[in-house]
């Protein structure tokens, strides 16, 4: 036993961090806890402290230094205006609409409000997106979609200085093919931005190489674009972001993550009305999900159970907790990013994964076949029959 002890210690040290058990009915939990979020600063402070489990990361310390403080900090920012208008494809003015101030009474009300927030509230303003909105010749290549005469994912709003602007909404990145929750894998913002910079006679930056469906989300010197995530398995996830820097101890962590995302997106000048981000979190937790069409006795299900289910839990939308990247084939960069690296990677859910790649955070595998044949996760591919069955099973998830 004495000789085993050091080994045990090493094992514990390398082990994944403790993962919270997601609450049973996250949307119900949120409806029940709305008052706390809206009225109790101390509750918000406690939630953010427990959710940012690696407080020393700049991603975390930046928020812990500023969110839900007794005085000053981001709570003291004025609220942003929730009055917006769609951006018409033909440039014509669209009617202004305002998100309501009223607190919804029940789950259906919260969800309906959240859906509007997802489509209407500007998460950030980008000068190049504003420019892109005036260049229909580029929309197709950039991956923008037109729906009912408007550019999906763009919104007109009035910024804190009183100027009319164009911003992006959640829908731009999280409503691929018009399906809420699906990552917009065709969207190529790096390309669009390069065109904008070139139109001004300047060489584009590193974003020129992001590729479709990927964005660099950190403010460090490292160029590390990440794939936009599908949002269907949030109710079962213990963590979010590729490196799991945010722990979902409670669903409140999700709302706080959105609140702070709007604050950074508006360059720390305003904050979103809190009932709107609470509604947004309820909406993304209750998104309609693609339903698996693979029969329960599909031969691929068995291969999956043997080789994959240890990390991708079928009872949790095939999501899992965090894993140390040692031995995983692929890039480990995000696990060690200066701003957000926790030393771990999130095991993503696989609902809807058959709708199309590319796969993994850096999009290195174009197809599920390529991913399986390369032997994800540890470089040990299944025998050909098993591989074919597994791919077919995945395609139906």
């Amino acid at each position, binding site marked *: 036993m004495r000789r085993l002890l050091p080994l045990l210690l090493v094992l514990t040290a390398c082990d994944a961090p403790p993962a919270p058990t997601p609450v049973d009915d996250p949307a119900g939990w949120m409806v029940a806890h709305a008052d706390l979020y809206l009225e109790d600063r101390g509750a918000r402070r406690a939630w953010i402290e427990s959710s940012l489990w690696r407080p020393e990361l700049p991603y975390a310390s930046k928020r812990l230094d500023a969110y839900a403080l007794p005085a000053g900090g981001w709570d003291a920012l004025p609220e942003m205006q929730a009055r917006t208008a769609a951006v018409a494809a033909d440039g014509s003015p669209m009617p202004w609409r305002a998100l309501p101030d009223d607190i919804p009474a029940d789950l259906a009300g919260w969800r309906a409000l959240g859906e509007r927030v997802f489509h209407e509230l500007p998460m*950030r303003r980008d*000068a*190049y997106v504003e420019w892109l909105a005036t260049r229909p010749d580029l929309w197709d290549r950039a991956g923008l979609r037109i729906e009912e005469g408007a550019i999906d994912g763009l919104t007109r709003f009035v910024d*804190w200085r009183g100027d009319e602007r164009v911003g992006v909404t959640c829908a731009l990145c999280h409503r691929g093919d018009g399906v809420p929750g699906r990552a917009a894998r065709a969207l190529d913002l790096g390309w669009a931005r390069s065109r*904008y910079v070139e139109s*001004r006679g300047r060489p584009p*930056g590193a974003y020129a190489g992001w590729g479709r469906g990927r964005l660099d989300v950190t403010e460090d010197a490292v160029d590390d674009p990440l794939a936009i995530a599908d949002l269907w398995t949030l109710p079962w996830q213990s963590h979010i972001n590729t490196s799991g820097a945010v722990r979902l101890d409670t669903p409140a962590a999700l709302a706080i993550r959105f609140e702070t995302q709007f604050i950074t997106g508006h360059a720390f000048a305003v904050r979103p009305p809190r009932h709107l981000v609470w509604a947004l979190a309820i909406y993304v937790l209750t998104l309609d999900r693609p339903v698996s069409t693979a029969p329960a006795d599909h031969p691929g299900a068995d291969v999956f159970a043997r080789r994959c289910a240890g990390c991708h839990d079928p009872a949790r939308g095939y999501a899992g907790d965090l894993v140390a990247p040692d031995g995983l084939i692929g890039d480990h960069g995000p696990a060690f990013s*200066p701003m957000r690296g926790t030393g771990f990677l999130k095991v993503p859910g696989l609902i809807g994964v058959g709708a199309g790649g590319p796969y993994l955070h850096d999009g290195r595998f174009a197809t599920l076949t390529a991913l399986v044949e390369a032997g994800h996760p540890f470089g040990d591919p299944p025998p050909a029959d098993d591989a074919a069955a597994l791919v077919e099973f995945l395609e139906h998830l």
Partner: protein
Amino acid sequence: MKMPLPLIALAASTLFACDHRPLPPEPGVDGLEAVHVSGHLGSYRDCPEQAWENLDAERPNANLVDGDCATDQCGPLNCQGARLTFTLSNGSDTDAEGIGALVFVLDREGVEVAELPATALLDEDGDAFDGRLAAGDEVLLHLEFVGPLDIAALVGPADPDGDRELVAWRNGAPIRLVVTSQTHEDAGLDTPALYSLPEVDT
């Protein structure tokens, strides 16, 4: 020399009793008080010539606001001046006038390593602040200033070991705000580490 305890006590009490220097004003009670709200170091990746490192005497004040690309000098999104938002209250019973502000970058030890030129002091709605604050009032102010292109070069030595904490540190730095006025003592605050703006936020 050893001093008996009672004597020390006596000396100390006389010291206090005889000290007629005025006590420093208690912040927030009878002077100006600044409280940090938010801030960032801007973003100059698409327009490095506008950053603090590249300012020259002829063109000292690049005034970039909110990626505002009305002018041809500035690129997209990533051209945004730095900004500090704070509340300022006047807890005294006299109106304050001629309020202005200075900004310094602090290094790891809290030492001022550079003054960053302020470009505008704005009120909550983005209009120029008139520099007056009536007794008992509080305002939210935005101070815009020229941020650095590379905060790491400003605040830290290179980190050959790739020390995580140091790497983290070198992506941001605290800012010291000094609020000056014609009528009141200076007020000030040190912010937590501020960072340049991310390209995308999630």
